[in-house]
């Protein structure tokens, strides 16, 4: 091994790449969830928050570019590792008992792909308004983009709500294994903390799922004022 590039080229190094990019995305997702929950504080709060983000063009675009770069790196490592791993058992088993492996750990690539599909849809839906161009024209009495009305209208459709719940469900599943894997890959899942880390990962994943899913569900069922 004669360069840092070679270090990141090993399986363990690639997993560090996966873990570092994954946890960056995780931190973004936590922030995003907290932002979303402002919908329950009413129209002013959420529109003000959106206005704050959108008026800071520099910050917004720096964050967007960072996020895109990190997400693409995560996906790049995910695809290369998954393809490499799949090629390493040429003859499969006649019967395979999946002892010890949770559903989440076996389906990281599938849940990741569902998340990716969901992100694309979500951007076309609420960020660019490609699926519903009228969303971008909603304005409140201050002349700000009326995000409140946009999400309320968006989530009045049961199919849209279902898509969001599936998308954030995949995120919860991905992170229930991803967060423990992140600790494991960076070498922090020592025997003393191992079972606690595993449990915490599931709890955080469930909290994220509920925190995200509650917005479309509450708006659909008319729970938000």
């Amino acid at each position, binding site marked *: 091994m004669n360069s840092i590039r070679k*270090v990141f080229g090993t399986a363990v*190094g690639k997993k560090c790449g996966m873990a570092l990019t994954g946890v960056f995305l995780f931190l973004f997702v936590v922030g995003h969830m907290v932002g979303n929950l402002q919908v329950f504080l009413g129209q002013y709060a959420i529109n003000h928050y959106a206005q704050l983000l959108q008026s800071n063009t520099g910050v917004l675009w720096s964050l967007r570019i960072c996020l895109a770069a990190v997400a693409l790196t995560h996906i790049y490592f995910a695809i290369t590792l998954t393809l490499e791993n799949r090629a390493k058992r040429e003859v499969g088993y006649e*019967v395979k008992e999946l*002892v*010890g492996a949770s559903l989440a750990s076996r389906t990281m690539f599938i849940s990741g792909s569902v998340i990716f599909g969901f992100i694309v849809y979500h951007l076309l839906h609420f960020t660019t308004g490609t699926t519903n161009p009228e969303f971008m024209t909603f304005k409140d009495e201050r002349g700000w983009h009326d995000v409140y009305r946009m999400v309320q209208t968006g989530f009045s459709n049961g199919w849209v709500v279902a898509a969001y719940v599936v998308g954030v469900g995949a995120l919860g599943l991905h992170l229930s294994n991803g967060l423990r894997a992140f600790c494991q890959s960076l070498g922090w899942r020592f025997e003393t903390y191992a079972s606690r880390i595993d449990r915490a990962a599931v709890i955080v994943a469930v909290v994220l799922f509920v925190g995200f899913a509650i917005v479309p569900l509450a708006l659909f069922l008319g729970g938000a004022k």
Partner: protein
Amino acid sequence: MKVTVRVWRQKNAKTPGRFVEYEVADASPDMSFFEMLDVLNERITKQGEEPIAFDSDCREGICGACSCVINGEAHGPEKKVTTCQTYMRSFQDGQVIIVEPFRAKAFPLIKDLVVDRSAFDRIIQAGGFISVNTGSAPEANTVPLPKYHSDLAMDAASCIGCGACVAACKNTSASLFVAAKVSHLNLLPQGKPEKDPRVLGMVQAMDEAGFGSCTVTGSCEAVCPKGIPISFISRMNYDFIAAALKLRVHGRRV
């Protein structure tokens, strides 16, 4: 008891293999799984057929020679035992028992249930040496060692290198084996001087030998006959990152 053994037969790496079913009518619940195969092989041989080739040596669960995936589980249905320590009482009368070799690209098949696990030897070689004086035992307590570390090192050292972790992993990752071997020396004062080159070399050798990477599924620890936990993989990753971040090991660039 009577069982049907559906076993993978393959003459050599070049000839395609297939499953062949054999009836074993005279098995006893007290027989080990291999004793049952021995009885079967005797009959097959008398009929002028090639006996089923399988690896075994100590037959007491300590050498790591035996392998086999039985009904989809590496080393069979019982937890924390090797195939040689699996007894017929773990199966039901009349059961169909499916016996397959360990499947991994890094473990090429030699014959029937026998696979070539020399990839593990290459990883061990990449780990290098440790500096100890041999001959006489050192004075007790001259090398201070926390009990916790000696216990952990013992747990890691209990790895018999059978390869069940690779066989059970969906990625054919050898991480648990390599982690056990790295940790058992890295945790001890005797292994400290060569700690960094050891972990870097073994991780690289693991890739070169054609094993996959770890997705933290935990299948390996579930089938490990010695019950070695995957937290050792985290230890290996920690040592690897620490060594790689130094960029220079023994004055040489990593």
